[in-house]
């Protein structure tokens, strides 16, 4: 109803006075007295009573408006000009290399987040070990040097260059020596650069020294064969392997490569062909290799040589004195059996020893020559350059320095103040050097002695190359711009040698002139492939030079020197290795494969020996070495540790490495010594109780299987007779009845197959999983409370062989004598979410936060979870992990991600979880999704192998196979058709999607 009536509000409006017309244009008829209020007199004015409501209203309004901003603003700047090669959300992979292994570095939006082995690599194409995986976290370490330093004060590179060149010139002028002390340097370009540097400063010499030395092998090969190299071992060609204290699938030389070789003779494919190698291990401490051995005989450190002599005698028929006698009857018996086996497998066997003593290694060489292994399983012509450190070189460097002959010393990737056994000798020597320059990326133990700190880039920021094996050259290329004001040491050396060349140009020129010449491949090809392989040289057989009797006597006297007090074996732990990555929280939290201890080293001692000394679990011991060095360390009762011995890991006890790693464990390097020019990680010690107790943070505290069939095993003999032996998988199944409807998976059905015979338990999958899935590190105290967050773990079970029976039950074990605990078998079982089709977790979640997908996956919707933890309780596999705290933003967890810089390591494809939320293995759903999208973009069906799990890609043993069960040709489908396949806890009918293959032991029959 329209009305044309117009009501006027006053005469002014009716008359449309000019003043009214003017005022009606603005919103308020009268000007607001804002100025009056806000200016001087206005502010002083008393607030009248009538304004009370006004002010109240304004106040509440203003406060509520201010409070409306409920989301904090994160400063994220989009690309103004998009770099051509960067598409947000799409990772870039760069071929690079780490320790000579060709790797792919996954970068997202310009930051490296994951290291994977280069699948195209020709050599070392195994998985990546925990240290390699975790190295990406070192890039984001806030404890690194941010600027170069002179005399402890931050400065610029120009001043550093001036100071260094002055020092070099002075040394040159006064004829003083210049030394570059480095860990093994196998970069051909860097070596050439050092040669150029030496040309400028002729007194320069490179001194290579490794924290853990393999010089004994090199010297023994020099003595025995005239070739001062570490040979390339070929465990994939060996049918019988005898190892005396060599942890060759763990930390000895090239563990991942050897794992791949070793397992290729033992995995499901090999077993299907009816082939399996046999490993016989003699050792004191339980190593990773020992835990995977078919027969493992605990021997004392001082019995290593007698065992080798006995082996030599049995193989050659000689009668060298000093063979192991009846005081270790078991070892004696096994030596006899082993030698028979070795002789049968002549040319297809290998004997290795972990000792770094020249005589011991010479003895091993003699055995291998007798077994005709050179040219077959041991290749001296395609040598390894992974460890070239020479202890005598370093000793003579120290002597020269002490004599005052060294003017300038550079320290590269080496930290003798931490890992050299004689700190006084080192300090005395360093004192006499006028100018000491360190390339260390942080102020470490050695930096205390340094005059100039010229911090090196991380390898992820550098150009470089490597030559780990004969004819195999790998590229290191930067994947991120340098974060701090650091400079790669090669560039520094170039500048100091007076060149203005960029190291990139130098490197490229060197490759183009030397490595790529004549290959037809260009530098750009290298950047894509990451390596150049010249091919294998034909391996030759070698004959042994030397007097075996005198070698044996020399070895024997070395050995006998340890036959007193408590024999101590020092070893590298799988996670921390030599301790270089001591500030890496991921490695500290990686449980030891055997002891499952995190965040500490300890004294491993056998239960019986501990009992005889009155030592119990959690005691703290004072260990006094023969050189007088003492440490106090907690006890770990280790079944299988030889009586009369203890094992202590080196690599711990860093004092100046960073927030996460400082004072974790104790330093055991000072126990080491130099014998015959090679570092020896054995000593003897007295141990006494301090009366203190200390609880180690273990991720597993119950160590036996309690007679349950969650781990199923058989012997190789039984397996040959019946492949389904031990697995219970005889084709037909009981009829089962279900309360629940069957889940249909019409498209894909993602499953895993895990080969227990392939898994060595090393745990690199755990680190890969942590990085891929942004799993928080929780620290020692939280691990003690059994709250580690690892989505995947490797369960380790001991079983004890007592008079032919397997004892695994707690109560039966309690009645065993100590000696019975020596004969221990170990099994490693990777365990992660089993993605049950009838998942117990799914039915109990009140809010449907965990549900099943039609691809057979058990999903976890973090945003929906409100944290009743019922799912975790109801999980029979106990694989669900709860965020007890906000690990990202809680100062109590300050060793990992509580800063924005380190958070750059996070994988943006995976949500980081808040406190109060459950999480678990998603079967890398982000990788599945990425794989599916890629196939879709390329308009093709998904192929087997397009998608790999983070854990599987890290695994050198191919123990974790992922794929689509609905594809009958996929590797996993084929693997799961194996008779060895069983499902853990299949009897409770939760219908897990992870199949396990029985553990097969190639036991030694008398």
């Amino acid at each position, binding site marked *: 109803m329209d009305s044309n009536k117009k009501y006027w509000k006053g005469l002014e409006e009716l008359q449309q006075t000019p003043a009214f017309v003017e005022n009606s244009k603005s919103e308020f008829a009268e000007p607001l007295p804002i100025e009056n209020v806000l200016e001087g007199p206005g502010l002083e004015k008393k607030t009248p009573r009538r304004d009370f409501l006004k002010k109240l209203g304004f106040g509440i309004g203003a406060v509520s408006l201010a409070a409306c901003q409920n989301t904090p603003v994160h400063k994220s700047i989009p690309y103004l000009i998009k770099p051509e090669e960067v598409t947000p959300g799409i990772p870039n992979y760069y071929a690079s290399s780490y320790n000579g292994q060709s790797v792919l570095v996954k970068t997202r939006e310009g930051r490296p987040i994951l290291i994977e082995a280069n699948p195209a690599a020709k050599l070392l194409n195994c998985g990546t070990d925990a240290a390699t995986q975790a190295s990406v976290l070192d890039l984001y370490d806030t404890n690194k040097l941010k600027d170069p330093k002179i005399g402890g004060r931050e400065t610029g590179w120009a001043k550093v260059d001036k100071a260094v060149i002055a020092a070099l010139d002075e040394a040159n002028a006064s004829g003083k020596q210049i030394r570059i002390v480095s860990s093994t340097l196998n970069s051909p370009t860097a070596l050439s650069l050092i040669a150029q540097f030496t040309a400028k400063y002729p007194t320069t010499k490179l001194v290579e020294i490794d924290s853990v030395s393999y010089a004994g092998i090199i010297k023994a090969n020099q003595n025995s064969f005239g070739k001062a190299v570490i040979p390339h071992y070929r465990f994939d060609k060996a049918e019988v392997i005898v190892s005396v204290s060599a942890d060759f699938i763990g930390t000895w030389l090239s563990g991942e490569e050897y794992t791949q070789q070793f397992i290729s003779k033992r995995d499901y494919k090999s077993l299907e062909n009816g082939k399996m190698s046999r490993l016989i291990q003699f050792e004191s401490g339980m190593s990773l290799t020992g835990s995977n051995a078919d027969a493992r005989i605990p021997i004392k450190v001082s019995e290593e040589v007698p065992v080798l002599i006995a082996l030599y005698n049995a193989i050659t028929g000689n009668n060298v004195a000093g063979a192991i006698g009846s005081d270790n009857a078991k070892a004696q018996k096994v030596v006899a059996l082993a030698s028979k086996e070795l002789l049968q497998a002549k040319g297809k066997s290998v004997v290795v020893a972990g000792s770094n003593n020249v005589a011991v290694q010479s003895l091993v060489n003699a055995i291998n020559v007798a077994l005709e292994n050179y040219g077959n399983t041991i290749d001296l012509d395609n040598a390894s350059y992974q460890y070239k450190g020479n202890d005598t070189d370093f000793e003579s460097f120290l002597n020269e320095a002490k004599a005052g002959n060294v003017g300038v010393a550079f320290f590269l990737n080496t930290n003798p103040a931490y890992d050299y056994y004689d700190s006084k000798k080192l300090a005395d020597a360093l004192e006499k050097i006028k100018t000491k320059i360190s390339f260390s990326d942080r102020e470490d133990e050695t930096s205390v002695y340094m005059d100039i700190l010229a911090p090196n880039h991380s390898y992820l920021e550098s150009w470089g190359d490597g030559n780990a094996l004969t004819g195999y050259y790998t590229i290191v290329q930067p994947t991120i711009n340098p974060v701090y004001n650091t400079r790669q040491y090669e560039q520094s050396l170039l500048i100091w040698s007076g060149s203005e060349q960029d190291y990139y140009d130098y490197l490229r020129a060197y490759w183009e002139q030397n490595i790529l010449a004549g290959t037809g491949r260009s530098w750009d090809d290298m950047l894509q492939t990451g390596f150049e392989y010249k091919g294998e040289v034909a391996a030759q057989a070698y004959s042994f030079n030397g007097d075996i009797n005198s070698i044996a006597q020399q070895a024997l006297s070395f050995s006998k020197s340890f036959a007193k007090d408590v024999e101590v074996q020092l070893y590298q732990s799988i996670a921390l290795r030599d301790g270089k990555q001591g500030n890496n929280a991921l490695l500290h939290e990686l449980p030891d494969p055997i002891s499952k201890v995190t965040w500490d080293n300890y004294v491993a001692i056998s239960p019986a020996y501990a009992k005889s000394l009155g030592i119990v679990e959690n005691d703290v011991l004072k260990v006094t070495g023969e050189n007088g060095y003492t440490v106090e360390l907690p006890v770990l009762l280790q079944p299988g540790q030889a009586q009369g011995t203890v094992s202590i890991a080196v690599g711990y006890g860093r004092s100046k490495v960073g927030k996460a790693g400082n004072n974790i464990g104790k330093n055991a390097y000072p126990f080491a010594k130099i014998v015959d020019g090679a570092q020896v990680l054995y000593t003897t010690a007295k141990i006494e109780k301090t009366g203190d107790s200390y609880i180690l943070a273990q991720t597993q505290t119950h160590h036996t299987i309690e007679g349950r069939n969650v781990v199923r095993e058989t012997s190789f003999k039984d397996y040959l007779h019946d492949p389904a032996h031990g697995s219970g998988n005889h084709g037909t199944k009981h009829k089962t009845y279900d309360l629940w409807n069957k889940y249909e998976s019409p498209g894909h059905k993602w499953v895993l197959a895990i080969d227990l015979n392939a898994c060595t338990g090393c745990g690199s999958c755990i680190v890969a999983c942590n990085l891929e899935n942004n799993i928080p590190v929780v620290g020692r105290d939280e691990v003690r409370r059994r709250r580690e967050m690892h989505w995947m773990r490797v369960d380790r079970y001991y079983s004890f062989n007592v008079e032919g029976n397997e004892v695994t039950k707690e109560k039966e074990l309690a009645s065993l004598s100590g000696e019975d605990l020596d004969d221990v078998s170990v099994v490693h079982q990777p365990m992660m979410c089993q993605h049950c089709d009838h998942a117990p977790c799914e039915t109990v979640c009140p809010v449907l936060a965990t549900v099943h997908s039609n691809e057979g996956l058990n999903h976890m919707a973090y945003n929906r979870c409100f944290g009743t933890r019922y799912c975790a309780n109801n999980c029979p596999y106990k694989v669900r992990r709860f965020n007890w705290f906000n690990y990202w933003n*809680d100062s109590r967890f300050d060793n990992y991600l509580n800063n924005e810089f380190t958070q750059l390591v996070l994988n943006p494809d995976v949500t980081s979880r808040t406190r*109060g939320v459950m999480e678990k293995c998603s079967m890398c759903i982000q990788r599945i999704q990425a794989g599916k999208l890629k196939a879709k973009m390329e308009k093709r069906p998904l192929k087997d192998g397009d998608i790999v799990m983070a854990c599987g890609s890290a695994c050198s043993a191919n123990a974790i196979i992922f794929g689509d069960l609905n594809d009958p040709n996929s590797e996993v489908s084929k693997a799961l058709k194996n008779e060895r396949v069983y499902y853990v806890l299949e009897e409770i009918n939760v219908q897990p999607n992870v199949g396990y293959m029985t553990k097969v032991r190639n036991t030694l029959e008398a």
Partner: protein
Amino acid sequence: MSSHNESIIREPLVTGQNITYAKVTNDILVPVENKPNKAWWIGFTLAVLGALLWLFSVSYTFWFGIGAWGLNKTVGWAWDITDFVWWVGIGHAGTLISAVLLLFRQNWRNSINRSAEAMTIFAVICAATYVVAHMGRPWLAYWIFPLPNQFGSLWVNFNSPLVWDAFAISTYFTVSLVFWYTGLLPDIATVRDRATGLRRRIYSIFSFGWNGSVKTWQRFEIVSLILAGISTPLVLSVHTIVSFDFATSVIPGWHTTIFPPYFVAGAIFSGFAMVQTLLLIMRKVLNFENYITMFHIESMNKIIMTTGSIVGVAYLTELFIAWYSGSEYEMYAFENRIAGPYWWAYWAMMTCNVISPQLFWFKKIRTSIPISWVLSIVVNIGMWFERFVIIVTSLHRDYLPSSWAMFYPTWTDVGIFVGSIGLFFTLFLLFLRVLPGIAIAEVKLLLNGPSYQQKLKLAKEGHQDPEQVAFLQKSLEKFDTVSEEEIKELSK
């Protein structure tokens, strides 16, 4: 209810002489209408301190996360759910007394139902706090209900016992509260009528305009009966559903069909023990001895003994079934309870719950007030251990030995539990200050029937069989509120 004469051999439910309606009102309203005495203040101070401890511990947990508790990757529930089930169980006696005994016309309930129901409500409040507090993200607790939400079809999981639990507990709380409040109406009106000023206005509002007319009383009786009918199934269903939290899982030691009856019996057992704990103190401190008599105490002890025996049989049945099942996991779960690292918890449970109530076979013991009180506490300790045993010892060693772990409580766990007892007593002591602790109207019904003075009157009328009078005299001997003269007087 009954105005006709009761058989003389029945024991009186109200003792003392010259008990008039006015005296009942006066006696019961003493704590409501007067300033609190010293005993109350001491108790209240302790209780409030406890409640503050609760507040602090819960706030600490909310601030830092559930990690403040001693839980771990293997044991995801421990003290939290133990305490929750313990409190829910305690609540059961109130409903049983108010509803089931009403339907069965057990008029001895009249003098204990009020406090028992109050206990139920406060116990359920304590239990409900755990439902929220144990969540990782408690601010999302409302997601447990099927509320409409912005996510479209996102709904709760009706397969999950926790959803049933939320329904069961909330229904139980609502019905108990309504039942309790309905029963309170005539008594609030009584307080109102005697009060002045502001108190009168407040009680007036809360009495919902009760006018004492016949129609009001009739409706009151009908509503009580209907509510009793609604509550009765709840007595069985609530703890049945709580037991489903465990029974429907796959964990050995939880996955048990016996749980529903076993939990219900256990709940009544612990509930009566708690009623006993409270009333024995209350009758002494508030001088309610004539209304809560030895007959009540003995009856409750008999119920404790019966339900305790049921629980004991359930424990033994569990052991038998574990052996009979042939399932190694099930067998191990029970072996581990008996002789594993938590053996002491199992044997504490066995001693407190199975052995100690058997003492009530002795009349001397079940009519001894101090022993009854001590045993009532022993039973509640035992019932706490029962839940601890079920939850922690089943979880800490389940299928894969690699994950076996121990649970050690932190100060927060202890603080929340001890604090919740403080919270409970704070509420209970406040209740005693503002509302009559005994149902005045319902006790008045007893004066002309099962009361000592009525028995005395009947005896004096002389029409009673002397043998029956002698029987009554004998049964009155245990009463602490009936003197020897009063017993003799019956046969004069």
